[in-house]
């Protein structure tokens, strides 16, 4: 699969390395070159420096033929906009968005985006620990 990842922080870099190891074609976008360098010299995927809400940058990252788009920058609204562009403009079949704000995650999930809220996931995990 061709997987485009927006945001090369801890989560983005982790996902990129994992998918690349599994043999997928991975392209990572970040506005900071240093963030992309953290992937290491042996990273087999491609990297693109630029703003993920810019359709031109997404195109350069090969979004047009992508099977999956994952938006995991630290900014919820950037993730939402990039995800909407990937889904509505480029027709990427699977789009996943990380949103820190649980409320926004719930609303945009209702509106058709696949959203993941780390806040909710962590809270649930903590609760489970207490139940056990």
């Amino acid at each position, binding site marked *: 699969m061709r997987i485009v990842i927006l945001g090369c922080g801890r989560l983005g870099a982790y996902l990129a390395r994992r998918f690349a190891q599994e043999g997928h074609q991975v392209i990572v976008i970040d506005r900071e070159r240093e963030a992309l360098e953290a992937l290491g010299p042996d990273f087999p995927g491609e990297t693109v420096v630029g703003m993920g*809400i*810019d*359709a*031109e940058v997404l195109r350069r990252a090969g979004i047009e033929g992508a099977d999956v788009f994952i938006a995991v920058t630290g*900014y*919820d*609204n*950037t993730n*939402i*906009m*990039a995800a*909407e*562009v990937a889904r*509505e*403009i480029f027709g990427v079949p699977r789009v996943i968005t990380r949103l820190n*704000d649980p*409320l*926004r995650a719930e*609303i945009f999930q*209702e*509106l058709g985006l696949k959203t993941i809220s780390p806040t909710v996931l962590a809270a649930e995990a903590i609760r489970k620990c207490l139940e056990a």
Partner: protein
Amino acid sequence: MYLIIVGGGKVGFYLTKSLLAEGHEVLLIEKNPRRAAFLIDELGADHVWVGDGCDSSTFAQVGMNRADAVIAVTGDDEDNLVVCLLAKRKFNVPRTIARINNPRNAAIFARLGIDVTVSTTEIIQAQIERALPLRSLVHLLALRRGGIELVEGKVAPGAPADGRPLRELGIPVDALVVMVVRGDQTFIPSGETVLRADDEVLAVTTPASEGALRRLLLGA
């Protein structure tokens, strides 16, 4: 009308002020408490809400569902998009208006259902083109659904249009000259109308025929 403005920077502040002066009910949402304190001093506490304009709990508290229009004018395109998407899809606000910085986002916002986008970059560019005699048609308005543009240009001396009736120019079928301004006269032309150099012309055209129209009117 009840208008909600998101983003209390310079644009949001002056916009709120002039819309209030026109007698509208206006609420300005600003998330930075220090900036909001200034806005409350200037506009009054009734017209300013301190909170995150991308947060749906803010929207519920300010009565978003009865707003006639939501206008997002923060400095970030993605924030303005999210405000408008929430207003439109979650609260069924009839009109959503977003300020955009990257002119290329206009098409994207339109596709995502935002009613109107205002591009500061393009407005400034249009003003510059009006002020400087550049050889191009000035875009006045893009009619979103039809893909048709309203453009303006001044007939250049020696251009094909200078001194010939419109009917003989071979104007493309998907372009139409709709108004001519000559000195202090303004009129709607017919096929017999003979344009002259320095006539200001308003035309509607598809983007595809704009080039042909430009060559006829401006000769370049």
